[in-house]
């Protein structure tokens, strides 16, 4: 009994410790987002005495935040949609068809994963200027697609390759071929993996700062992470407003994750064969 109790206590403390470690910064930023900067300066870790909800309205209205938010939504949504469709199609082709050069194409796509963005960013900047895509949301979307595509193909191919071949044979006999098989079998059966890549891509792109700061300069085209930077002046940092802006940026990600994680239903293929 005592041993059992000890074990439970150890487990609980480990969980509590981890929760504090993981959620602590988030809670701190959340509490700062409801405090004014002088209040934060006075007591950085103190809980807010009065909840300054008006800071959210102020951040949204006074700081062009609506535009940043909308830009982020457009760029991320477009990039995620394109990456998902193109990536899933490429993964389907690589996983299902045995064609000449398949391994080479796979290796070429996956090799780009190893390069850190800092290596390619200058060349990328030149290319975007060359093709009049610098400082445009279309350009940023295309870059996001290019950046996230290899990892998406990599993840999806591994999953699609595990979908039993016999399902495709049954579909062939049922009269389906080519692209129909992709829409009717691969996409629905592979949805748990697709949902995972949607979440990963969306969160990564929503938080991207590097590509946005290099490729966007016009205030009307900034995305949320750039918007937060606006509160960091040369002379002073409005920490209170930065916290509020960060919370506005984070909330959609949390909502998005909560929505999609519901659909991360594993074992969709259980019962397909055997």
């Amino acid at each position, binding site marked *: 009994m005592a041993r059992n109790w000890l074990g439970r206590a150890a487990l609980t403390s480990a969980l509590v410790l981890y929760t504090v470690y993981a959620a602590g910064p988030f809670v701190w930023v959340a509490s700062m987002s409801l405090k004014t900067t002088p209040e934060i300066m006075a007591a950085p870790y103190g809980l807010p005495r009065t909840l300054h909800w008006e800071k959210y309205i102020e951040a949204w209205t006074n700081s062009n935040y609506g535009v940043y938010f909308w830009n982020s939504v457009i760029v991320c949504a477009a990039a995620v949609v394109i990456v998902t469709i193109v990536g899933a199609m490429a993964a389907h082709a690589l996983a299902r068809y045995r064609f000449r050069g398949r391994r080479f194409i796979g290796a070429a796509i996956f090799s780009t994963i190893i390069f850190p963005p800092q290596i390619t960013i200058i060349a990328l900047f030149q290319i975007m200027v060359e093709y009049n895509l610098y400082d445009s949301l279309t350009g940023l979307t295309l870059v996001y697609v290019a950046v996230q595509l290899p990892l998406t193909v990599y993840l999806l191919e591994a999953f699609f390759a595990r979908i039993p071949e016999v399902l495709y*044979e*049954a579909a062939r006999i049922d009269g389906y071929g080519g692209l129909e098989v992709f829409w009717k079998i691969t996409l629905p059966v592979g949805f748990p993996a697709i949902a995972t890549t949607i979440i990963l891509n969306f969160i990564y792109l929503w938080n991207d700062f590097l590509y946005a700061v290099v490729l966007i300069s016009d205030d009307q085209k900034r995305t949320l992470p750039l918007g937060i930077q606006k509160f960091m002046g040369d002379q002073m940092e409005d920490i209170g407003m930065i916290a509020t802006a960060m919370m506005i940026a984070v909330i959609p990600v949390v909502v998005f994750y909560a929505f999609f994680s519901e659909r991360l239903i594993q074992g969709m293929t259980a*019962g*397909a*064969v055997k």
Partner: protein
Amino acid sequence: MATVELKGLGQRFGASAVVEGVDLSIADGEFMVLLGPSGCGKSTTLRMIAGLETISEGEVMIDGRKVNDVAAKDRDIAMVFQSYALYPHMNVRDNLAFGLRRRRISPAEIERRVAKAALSLGLEPYLERRPSALSGGQRQRVAVGRAIVRDPKVFLFDEPLSNLDASLRVNMRGELSTLHQRLAATMIYVTHDQVEAMTMGSRICIMKDGHVMQVGAPMAVYREPQNAFVAGFLGSPPMNLIPAEIIAAGERSELRIAETRLRLETALKPGAVTLGIRPEELALDAGATSLGAITGTVSSIEQLGAETIVTLTLPEGLIRARLDNRCKLTLGEPLALHVEAGTLHFFDRATGQLVGRA
């Protein structure tokens, strides 16, 4: 309903042949079973008929039309897979209707066919369930239902019962036979289970190493095997195969098995042969047409309830006999098993081909 004809059908991977020179005619409404051990090419043959494998040589004809280059979907066949291959993201209703939707059949007709198939297979309560919520037997029925609703020319079954437990397999065997009688459809059924083959097939095609060894009605194949492989493959226990020698003895022949000599009623070509005799043809007592007795030592007694399988050790090897369950034998005792005329099969030692019966 249709006829299926295979002419010199073969499949190769480089120099090695998986299937070679398969000639087989399947009549309209026939239940043809392709039977053989693992790797004999039976599934590959079925998949070539289905259009799922490329054909290296020969022809597949369905209803007199060559379909070598016709896509699987245009061959008007339906297939039940060993693993059922149900679409996991669709419920039973959609699984059944999936193939029909592609063929631009009206929704009302699809609904009618699905309802009819569900009724005949007892699937009505499960139409809204996904495959993962069904038992093995129910999944198997859905797989069969998916084939039935299509009303195809030919039904193909690739070991459909091998994933079911023993009792369910017996039930499904009966149901598939009933289905065949009701639909009177042409069915080709692949299995490695000889009981399935014997009980279900109108005819059996036994394959080995990519070649057809024998084709015929179940009992004909059982009683009159054309080669030692078929003799040794069918039956449980299978036919005894032991080395023996035919010796000329005047107008008749004599068979020598070590010390034992049997007098044959006809004259056969002298020489070394493989003797084949079914375990149930050996008896403790001599019958009216007894040719003599094979003697040996009892080395094993398996009492199966209804019968007793006795293994006799001879200098040439072992012989198993299926005897009455009341026989009283002890291990190590000498035993003589009588052989009746008309039960002996002789196979060539080298080729395994039948050279005579007596």
